[in-house]
């Protein structure tokens, strides 16, 4: 990428309302650091208290999902994932992407579709049920059940997702993108 290409990159990101973007290895220390930066950026963007809290919560659930279940970075710097917060008036979109073994796709897709079909009120009730059941994990990961429900409760629209099959040579992987509108 030369300087002109970078100029286009920055101009596009600015025009698209990108508030924060990270793509690369992620570990807990970085998540904590990024959390502080994100809170300041949201204030600068004029997010109100409730908005900032919900954006932060969705972001953290996504970030921690990457830290716990993403593909280990070859250089040993945590897990690989992409995270972004984008201004989408009147609120924000919080998005993430991470690798997922293809064998997990049907299970994850079923859970995502189930949550997608819930109203915020249904998601709230499902959250309580899952919490009260002792958080028995019937999904693809230890925390993702409540994490996804947290996003669904806070979101202004159903959670969007897309699975992108990866070319051979990277194991049998999909890249999963999630989007929560706050």
């Amino acid at each position, binding site marked *: 990428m030369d300087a002109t290409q970078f100029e286009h990159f920055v101009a596009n990101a600015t025009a698209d309302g990108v508030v924060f973007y990270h793509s690369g290895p992620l570990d*807990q220390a970085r*998540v*904590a650091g990024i*959390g*502080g930066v994100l809170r300041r950026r949201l204030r600068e963007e004029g997010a109100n*208290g*409730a908005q900032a*809290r919900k954006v*932060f*919560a969705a972001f*953290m*659930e996504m970030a*921690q999902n990457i*830290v716990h279940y993403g593909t280990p970075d070859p250089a040993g710097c945590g897990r690989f994932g992409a995270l972004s917060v984008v201004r989408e008036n009147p609120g924000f979109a919080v998005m993430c992407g991470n690798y997922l073994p293809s064998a997990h796709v049907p299970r994850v897709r079923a859970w995502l579709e189930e949550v997608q079909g819930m109203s915020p009120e249904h998601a*709230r009730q499902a*959250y*309580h049920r899952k*919490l*009260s059941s*002792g*958080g028995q994990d019937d999904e693809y990961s*230890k*925390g993702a059940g*409540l*994490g996804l*429900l*947290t996003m669904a*409760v*806070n979101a202004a629209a159903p959670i969007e997702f897309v699975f992108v099959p990866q070319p051979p040579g990277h194991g049998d992987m999909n890249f999963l993108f999630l989007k929560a509108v706050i």
Partner: protein
Amino acid sequence: MTEFYLPPSPCTPEVVLSSSKSLLTLKGESYPENVLAFYASLLERIRTLVEDERLPRLQVEMRITYYNSASAKAFHRIFQLLNQAGERGCAVHVLWHFDPEDDMARDLGNNFREDFPALDLVDVPLAVA
């Protein structure tokens, strides 16, 4: 006697558990890398306090400004333990602090009140700064 203290960090709360003061407080943020590992030692000490020491009463203060979903599960386990103590006669009073704009934190307090009737859980909406 149980006197347990964990200093706050950017992603873990300050924790005080004291049998001499009959007090448990959690204050700050809660999104540790490994929630189960972080709360395991606290759960064990709470168990000692309410089962072995048979504390007659316990004042609990929850002042968590942000918790992730895995931490909510950990809180559920803490309150489950305290509820069992309450059923055995320990008077457990919980102050549940939350930002009035934070619907999920308010709901979580309601969930705990519903699930754990042996606890006296009182809402404390924080003054908005």
